Every structure is written in structure tokens, then in C-alpha cells.
């Protein structure tokens, strides 16, 4: 974290008591609008959410039920299924995005002349909305009429969208497609921090390109790589839009992740208490990742 080295030096204190105290409290006045909005739109709802997680609506009345919501959740197979789906989704998404992102970043790091063009093309999937992206992907896999489904048909012999494993694969592929450019940009920026001479001298000493990457480049950009991994995992755990647009959790809950589970409980079935309890579980996962993220950032600078 780079905090300014020193506060701003104000040479002439204003004359008059009122003016002076105004000048001293200026930073707070400037911060006030942002803080007020954050309190109302972010902080208060977060606490409200915690409160809701311990409430349950029965016969139209909400009452405190302690850990009842969590009990229901932990007992239901649905939660564990969603957890497992989230884990599968996150792991595959993370590994594939990182591997491809590194591949692309390494290629682009060779100072290719067309880099700006490649970056723009790579980034178009990233600027699309989840709903638009999801719609595109769903169509490409519709039975008989979907272009990728038809292409893959001889290979897989089934309709991928209707198949539990296939549907998950489509959701993962589309998520990788959306995030790849972002990961590539972060990794490319990291790679460009590594002095060229370091890699070249290792190569002169007889290291293969693979060795240079594993033993020279990677250790130097460790922190940035970790930050990228964390940003991607937070994104993965919270993702809902794409799944909603492509599979709507199906077939038979095969792509029902934690985020989708929460969406469904709260908005399809109107169970806000249960929804809030799921939100708490996701929140906990995020907090853990966030702490690691901030630690990494602080260790890096």
C-alpha cells in the first residue's frame, strides 16, 4: 500500500477561528459524501444481512430463530451439492484461466508488434455483459441448431447442455472465455516488470526456456501471480450471471453453485432468511480470501 509520504503542507493557516477549524476539518468534509453513501448502500445492508440470517418467516411473521437457518442448510444435501459444484467450477476455471493466461502473456511478452490488436480482440468477451455472453454460449450448444454442439456431436455423442458434466464444462469454458483477457493483462504487466537481462543471462548459462520460466521468472512475479489467482477465485465463488443465463443451475442441479443456490432460495422461493444464511457462508469464504489478498498486497510493497 502506498500512502503518501507526508501530508500536504498548508503554509498559511486561515485567519479567524471558524475558518481555521473549517480548514482543519476539510478532509472530513471531502470524505463525507463517499462515506455516507457507503454506509447506506454497503455497510448497513451487510449488517442487515447478518441479522436476516438469524430470522425466519413463519406465517408471515419474521422472528429470531437463532442458528435454525444454518441448521437447515447444513442438513440439506442441496448445500453440499452446491459447495461441491462451486469447488469443481472454481478449480477448473482457475487452473484453465491461469494456464492459458500465462501462455498468452508469455507470447505477448515477446514484444509482438501486433500486441495492441491482440489485446483488443481478447478483451471483447470481457466487456460483454454476463447475460449477453451467456445467451451466446447457450445458443452455440442448443441441440440440432447450435454450431458448437453440431461440431462436437461426433466426438461426444450427446447433447452437452442436457448432460451434467457437459453443462458444467460449458459453464466453465464460458467463464474462462470471459476472464482470460483480464488474467492475461495482469500477468503480462507482471512479466514486464522482470528485467530482460535476468532471463537472458540465465538462458546464456544454458537454462532451457522452461527452466528460465520456473526458476527465474516465476519466483520474481510470485506476488502478482497470487493476486491474480485470488481475484479470479473471488470472482468464481460469487459468479451467478453466466450460470443463470446458460443453464439456470441445471440439468438437475448439476451447475447449481453457491451463488445460484442463494439466488434461487431468496428470489425464486422467497426464503430470505435461508438466502441470507447462504450469503453468510459465501461471505466467510470471501473474507478468508480477502485477508489473504490484502496480506499479499502488503507483503508485496
Amino acid at each position, binding site marked *: *500500500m502506498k500512502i*503518501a509520504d507526508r*501530508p*500536504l*503542507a*498548508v*503554509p*498559511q493557516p486561515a485567519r479567524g477561528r471558524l475558518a481555521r477549524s473549517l480548514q482543519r476539518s*476539510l*478532509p*472530513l468534509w*471531502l*470524505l463525507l459524501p*463517499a*462515506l455516507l*453513501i*457507503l454506509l447506506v448502500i*454497503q455497510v448497513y*445492508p*451487510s449488517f*442487515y*444481512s447478518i441479522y*436476516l440470517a438469524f430470522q425466519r418467516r413463519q406465517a408471515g411473521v419474521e422472528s429470531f430463530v437463532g442458528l435454525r437457518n444454518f441448521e437447515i442448510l447444513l442438513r440439506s444435501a442441496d448445500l453440499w451439492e452446491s459447495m461441491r459444484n462451486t469447488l469443481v467450477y472454481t478449480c477448473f476455471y482457475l487452473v484453465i484461466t491461469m494456464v492459458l493466461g500465462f501462455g*498468452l502473456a508469455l*507470447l505477448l511478452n*515477446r514484444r*509482438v508488434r*501486433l500486441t495492441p490488436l*491482440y489485446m483488443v*480482440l*481478447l478483451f471483447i*468477451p470481457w*466487456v460483454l*455483459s454476463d*447475460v*449477453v*455472453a451467456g*445467451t*451466446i454460449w447457450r*445458443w*452455440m450448444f442448443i441441440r*440440432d*441448431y447450435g454450431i458448437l454442439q453440431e461440431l462436437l456431436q461426433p466426438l461426444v455423442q450427446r447433447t452437452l447442455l442436457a448432460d451434467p458434466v457437459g453443462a458444467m464444462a460449458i459453464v466453465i469454458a464460458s467463464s474462462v472465455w470471459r476472464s482470460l483477457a483480464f488474467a492475461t*493483462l*495482469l500477468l503480462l504487466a*507482471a512479466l514486464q516488470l522482470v528485467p530482460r537481462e535476468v532471463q537472458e543471462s540465465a538462458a546464456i548459462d544454458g537454462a532451457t526456456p522452461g527452466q528460465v520460466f520456473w526458476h527465474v521468472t516465476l519466483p520474481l512475479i510470485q506476488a502478482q501471480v497470487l493476486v491474480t489467482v485470488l481475484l479470479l477465485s473471488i470472482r468464481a465463488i*460469487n459468479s*451467478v*450471471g453466466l450460470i443463470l443465463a446458460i443453464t439456470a443451475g441445471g440439468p438437475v442441479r448439476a451447475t447449481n453453485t453457491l451463488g445460484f443456490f442463494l*439466488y434461487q432460495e*431468496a428470489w425464486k422461493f422467497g426464503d*430470505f432468511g435461508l438466502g*441470507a444464511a447462504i*450469503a453468510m457462508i459465501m*461471505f466467510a469464504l*470471501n*473474507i478468508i480470501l480477502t485477508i489473504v*489478498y*490484502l496480506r499479499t498486497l502488503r507483503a*508485496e510493497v
Partner: protein
Amino acid sequence: MVTAPTRKRLDMWLTNAMLMLFCALMIFPVLYIVMTSFKTRGDVLTSPPTFFPPVWSLDGYQQVFRSNMLRYYIPNSFINSLLSSLLVMPIAGLAGYVFSRYRFRGSRALLLAILGIMMIPGLTNLIPLYRMASDLQLLSTNTAMIAVYVGGGLPFSIWITKSFFDSIPRELEEAALIDGATPLSALWRIVVPLAMPGLFAAFLLNFVDTWNEFLAAVVLLSRVDTKTATVGLLDFQSQFEVAYHVQAAGCVMIALPVVVLFLLTRKIFFQAMLEGSLKG
């Protein structure tokens, strides 16, 4: 024996070939939907499917132009994204400036807390926000959407503007202060013009983010005339169930503004993203 320069050129050639192949794969789904949007009603349902439209037609777009997409959904998205991004810019800018220039008790902790907010999953807050909007009679209004978007965009924008202010030397303002300017006029006349690219970056990222936002919108908006483009697309899909060319044209219309904006401002865009995610 291959000589070194030839090898290097071969290497470069291979690199470019691989990159081109990759970019083609990445852009394929986008091209596919653009092609689909120009097909006729019958040609979207051919088996096996074709990539290029056998007959080019504007029927899809004509139907989009007559639909709610252009009457309500896209204009609503414009209002929400534009107003919320315009509001975020100065509010985040002032806060970013304070975090860059002043130190007071707890300022560092406050900044960290704001960054922490960035990690709260948007989904977590939706239930309370829905309740609040409902209590305030603000369900299905642009006001509610703009408020939620401003609150959602602030943390990241504060972060970006702060990094930007950090890169502007403070000697400039101090010179103005010595010349007798008040801190506010020094900020307005000297710092703000220099920080314009950073403020614009905040505006840009917020615009794209809110334009694409879906979950808050689908939860808070139920009236047709206040729905945004991403939510409207869902209605669109039930309305034009098998008319995929109309749906595709709708998708293209939704994507077009942000894609164009991105193409025009890509440098600031990339810079802001790096600034916000990596630079501590």
C-alpha cells in the same frame, strides 16, 4: 544449419500464428452472434447450422427497433449508467484526493475498510437492498438503481483516483497555497485538471460495469418501463422464443455501446484496470 536471424524470424512468425489462432477462437462466439443477427427467421433454425447467413436480412434489427428494447430497456440503461458514473466520479475523486494528500487518525484503516467492501459479494447485499427499496417505495425506479450503482462503484473508483492523485506531485499545490490560494481552489484549479485522465478512467469503468450489471437490476426492477437492457433481454427471450435472429440482434444492440466505448478508450481502460487491481 539454421542461422540465428532466420530462427528468430521463424520464432516470431510462430508466436504471431499462435496468437492469431487464439484471438480467432476468442472472437468466434461474438462473430457468430453478429452473423446470427443478420439471418432470417427460417435460417436460424437450420440443421446443420451455418455460420454465415445464407441470406442477409435486417429483419432481426427491425423487430428490435419496434420492441421495448429500444423504447425502454436501452434508454434506461443509458440513464442509470450515465448518471451513476457521473455521480461516482466527483464523490470518489474527493475521497481519493483526501486519502492521497491528508493523514489523520484512522485514515489508513478507513482506506483498508473501503477496499474490504470491494470484496463483499454483491449478492450478499441484495436482499437488504431489496427490502430498503421496498420500504422507501423505490422498487422499479431508476433512483434505486442509480443509488445502488453509485454505492457499488465507489470503493474501486476511490482506489483508482487515489493512485492517480498519488502520481501528481504535491509541490504544485503547495506552491499555489504559498501564493495564497485556499486548499479548495488549489484542488479545483491545479489538481483536478491534472487528474482528469484518472477521473475519466473511473467514469469509464463504472459505465461499463453498470451497463452490464444484471443481478441488482433483475431483483429491483419489475416494471417494464424501468427495466434495463440486461434484464429486458430476459423478457425478450420469452417474447421471441425461437426467433433467435431477433434475440441476437438484441444482444448486439446491448453490446455495441460498451464495445465501441472500450475500443475508443482502450488505453485508459487497460491502465485503470491495472491501477485498480495490482498497484498497491
